[in-house]
């Protein structure tokens, strides 16, 4: 790798943050048109920059803000193509082979991270690695269509977090419970939780079985003390994951 190329790589992150001068931005924009690796990395950094504000405490605009935008929109007509932002390499997106490659990359990345965890001595560094999200499971609202959940399993495979939205708050005698369903074995509980008044929750969980051994992951409503097996309807369910 040349020193000049290293210089471009150094500036990709700053470009994504909008933190370069105009001449530096032009240099990067010219470089990525001929360097697919840098173009991909820049896209990834831009995705990271795009989500930074999501951790801010949300503030809604005043209710009349939409009226101003609607008025402005009616005065304008879309003129798409008249003005474009940066030029990125002209390679096609979203072909099935590329999607398969992304999935394969994620699997390889996950395996390499798990290997990295197993090779290091225990300590804060391993804990940090272990808490890095390794797999993502999307649970769909089967029994409760408006609900959704994301199970983030850490690299170590034994810990993670569960993000939930759209479940109704329950009384103090009730709770929701996470289940790992296995073929030929009793369902393994992943813990109970409640949602807030807005129907959301962010819960640290323990993953009792390997995801590779689970056939389905579900959420049911149970007594607040938990249950030995699911007794309620499957409210959210996942049957495939990365």
């Amino acid at each position, binding site marked *: 790798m040349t020193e000049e190329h290293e210089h471009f790589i150094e500036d990709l992150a700053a470009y994504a943050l909008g933190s370069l001068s105009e001449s530096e931005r032009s240099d990067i924009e010219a470089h990525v048109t001929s360097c697919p690796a840098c173009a991909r990395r820049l896209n990834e950094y831009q995705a990271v920059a*795009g989500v930074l504000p999501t951790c801010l*405490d949300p503030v809604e*605009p005043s209710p009349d*803000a939409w009226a101003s935008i609607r008025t402005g*929109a009616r005065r304008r007509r879309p003129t798409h193509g008249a003005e474009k932002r940066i030029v990125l390499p002209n390679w096609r997106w979203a072909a099935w082979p590329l999607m398969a490659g992304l999935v394969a990359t994620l699997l390889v990345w996950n395996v390499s991270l798990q290997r990295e965890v197993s090779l290091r001595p225990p300590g804060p560094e391993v804990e940090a690695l272990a808490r890095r999200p390794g797999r993502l499971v999307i649970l769909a609202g089967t029994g409760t269509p408006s609900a959704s959940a994301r199970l*983030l399993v850490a690299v170590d495979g034994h810990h993670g977090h569960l993000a939930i*939205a759209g479940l109704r708050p329950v009384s103090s005698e009730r709770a929701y419970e996470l289940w790992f369903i296995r073929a030929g074995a009793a369902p393994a509980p992943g813990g109970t939780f409640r949602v807030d008044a807005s129907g959301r929750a962010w819960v640290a969980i323990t993953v009792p079985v390997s995801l590779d051994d689970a056939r389905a992951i579900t959420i049911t409503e149970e007594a607040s003390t938990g249950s030995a097996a699911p007794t309620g309807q499957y409210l959210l369910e996942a049957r495939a994951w990365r």
Partner: protein
Amino acid sequence: MQLLRQMQTGDEAALEVLYRRYAGLVFTLALRIVGDPELAREVLQDAFLRCWDGRETYDPRRGRVPWWLMGIARNRAIDLLRSRSHQARLREQEPLSGATRTPNQLDTADAVALRHGVARALEGLSAVQRQAIELAYYGGLTQVEIAEQLDEPLGTVKSRTREAMERLRVSLWPLIEPRREE
């Protein structure tokens, strides 16, 4: 993306759906940067109208639609901050009004996961790495300006920024890699 295609045909209902979904995020970011609800509202309006009239075009390779919107809003907010820096600083001293600090009732599990994931990822950075991100993204400073403000070598600032973003990228990629259904 379907919404954006509909907007290209002049479908105002699609614009309203986009607004209802993401106005809170956009306004929150704008307010964080400019510090004034009226200026934030100006950024909000400008961002959505630029999407509407085609002055901003969406590229799925750069991430999902809300994050593309964040980029537009952030750029507009920084432009506003730089052009009205004096007035914005004066307004920062006044109590915030005209905005409602309430949770987004339309939150999905994705949004819940992302909010907590990003917060944890930022906590995993060192203090100087977080500062580099903060000054660049929310402060709108160039790397040269950050180096001058911190009285540090430019190379140090650039390395720090790159290391911070690389750590965030590795931590957050399972949550943010582009999905086709957007």
